[in-house]
């Protein structure tokens, strides 16, 4: 094949830039190795890249404060290119290089692929931001979740909807990802358990852009829903809400953390009043606000997504688990991790104890108002209200 030489060179350079990000420090006994096998290119890049930035900030801070157990942290980063097979390969490489804990991709399939390798090596691992509550059990006792679970967010959204007096709900889901499918289903389950009524379920395909058919259908519903819930995110959420509002439907819309992005706040009038859940709100004096300041200081630009903060949180959780274990032994870290309680991280407090490796953490509700984020409140729902995974 005759690809021009300079194209080859560019591709090679980019590949190198993508894969060899590991902090090349000579290993010695005074270092503790943490691995991150993430999708830094490919479709997970929008999530794993920000997570990595948060992880790196945490590593900087931890090392500046003396490291973990008195040892400096060496972060080894492998790009899986969002490829499931490569996720397993990268995890194996990390195991071979002697990491004591591992962060894996933001999505379920690659996270499982890496996770089973870590599980076999008895090295604890956690997905940076996969939110499917069944993920840890799909791998085994060495696999942890980090991010706010879908059923947790859904329960918070449902109880908020009932508080507002909404009776009839419409949910819009996409079966293309567990997140876009399950979260609205958990919402419907919780909403109905709290006495609400589900009017209809709409379906879309991720990336479909055109919601005219669905919107026309919503217009014809009887009874009309008084709340619409969806886990759609970019580019689907903006397209959906624009076409919904254009059709003259002003039913309140509840979204989830996927829409916590500058795009949503740039949508103008159509997004006004949209309420969405996420992992935390940077209210004045909160640890999240302090985090945002540190982030901007390190990267020279303001943080524009909560995924950096949850990446930071995860690194802090790993540090807490190792400190609590008092050793770098895998099983000891795992047990300590499983018993962590009220670890202070950027977004608030995280507890793993008695949660079957899916942490309880605060869920914040936010409203889009005048292109700004307004804090509705922080919620820690009663575990009995959370739909079973």
């Amino acid at each position, binding site marked *: 094949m005759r690809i021009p030489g300079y194209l080859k060179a560019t591709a090679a350079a980019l590949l190198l830039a993508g894969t060899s990000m590991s902090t090349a420090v000579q290993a010695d006994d005074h270092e503790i190795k943490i691995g991150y096998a993430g999708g830094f290119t490919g479709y997970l890049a929008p999530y794993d890249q*920000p997570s990595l930035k948060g992880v790196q900030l945490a590593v900087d801070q931890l090392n500046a404060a003396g490291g973990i157990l008195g040892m400096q942290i060496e972060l080894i980063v492998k790009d899986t290119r969002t490829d499931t097979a490569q996720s397993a390969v990268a995890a194996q490489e990390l195991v071979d290089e002697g990491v004591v804990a591992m962060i894996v991709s933001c999505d379920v399939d690659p996270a499982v692929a890496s996770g089973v390798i870590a599980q076999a090596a008895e090295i604890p691992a956690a997905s940076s931001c996969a939110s499917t509550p069944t993920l840890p059990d799909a791998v085994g006792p060495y696999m942890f979740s980090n991010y706010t679970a879908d059923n947790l967010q859904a329960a918070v959204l449902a109880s908020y909807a009932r508080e507002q007096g909404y009776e009839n709900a419409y949910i819009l889901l996409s079966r293309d990802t567990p997140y876009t499918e399950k979260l609205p289903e958990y919402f419907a389950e919780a909403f109905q358990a709290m006495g609400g009524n589900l009017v209809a379920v709409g379906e879309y395909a991720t990336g479909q852009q*055109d919601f005219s058919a669905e919107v026309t259908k919503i217009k014809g519903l009887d009874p009309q829903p008084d709340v619409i819930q969806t886990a759609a995110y970019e*580019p689907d959420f903006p397209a959906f809400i*624009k076409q919904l509002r254009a059709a003259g439907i002003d039913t309140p819309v509840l979204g989830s953390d996927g829409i916590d992005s500058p795009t949503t706040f740039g949508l103008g009038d159509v997004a006004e009043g949209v309420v969405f859940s996420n992992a935390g709100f940077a209210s004045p004096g909160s640890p999240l606000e302090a985090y945002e300041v540190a982030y901007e200081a390190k990267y020279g630009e303001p943080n524009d997504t909560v995924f950096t903060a949850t990446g930071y949180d995860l690194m802090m959780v790993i540090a807490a688990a190792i400190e609590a274990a008092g050793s770098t032994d895998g099983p000891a870290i795992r047990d300590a991790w499983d018993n962590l309680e009220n670890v202070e991280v950027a977004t608030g407090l995280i507890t793993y104890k008695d949660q079957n490796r899916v942490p309880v953490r605060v869920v914040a509700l936010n409203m889009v108002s005048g292109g700004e984020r307004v804090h509705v409140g922080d919620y820690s729902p009663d575990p009995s209200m959370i739909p079973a995974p």
Partner: protein
Amino acid sequence: MEIFVQQFINALALGGTYALLALGLAMVFSVLGLINFAHGELMTITGYAMFFAIAAGIPFPIAVILGIAAATLAAILMERIAFRPVRDANTATMLLTSFAVSTILHMLFQNLISARPKAIPVPDWMIGAINLGGLSIGVIQVMSITATTLLLLALTVFLRRSILGIAMRAASLDFPVTRLMGINANAVIATAFGISGLLAGVAGVLWLAQRGSVDPLMGFLPVLKAFIAVVLGGLGSLPGAVLGGFVLAFIEVSLRAFLPDDWLPFRESITLTLVIILLLVRPEGLLGRKDAVR
């Protein structure tokens, strides 16, 4: 009845965007025999050009023009830099080159701009709708239908009246003999890429106005749809590509609008099955070679 008319308009608007994309893809295919899988990245380039223009304080309408110009220029450069050196190689080489271009652009966007979506705020007037006796037609839908109509008319005039246009139709049938007419191969190919870039730019603006953001991978899905439309319409046929775009949109919108709820999860597979059935009935596509541009 009303709901049928509404869904018909919905399909027409979506079909317009598909048709523009498919036509661009078909244009390049007809002169080079290449399905340019980097075609979707031209839309992404429109998006980033608009993003940076708006960030620099340039008014929205001018940002739109810059976005379309950027896609056009990028298409011409793509041909000059990536495809011309492999023009005489076999089809597989060219196809792989187009994949390589697409991948390299993804990486450049992800690493030089951002892996996260960048917001493109659209003026509020574009988000409204026009109400016509119970029908609600979004402003973007009106723009889509208008832009498609105007572009198709302009392109038809170009293809029928100008020497270069006639040459492009001739080249779609027989490139070597077109060159025997004294037609410059580079001019024909560069024009085909330029037009495909222009069409992708316009489709990109319509697409971006709906989605409100640009991200590195946004071009993948539309180019896939356009590819289906091109095959459905008949590889190498320009009117076929347009027809394929509309047919695909009509199938998609009808299924989404009128399938019973229980069947909704299967709508994508039903769409593809219908496309395959159409291709079994007419293996050369709806307007195969013989009926190519008149």
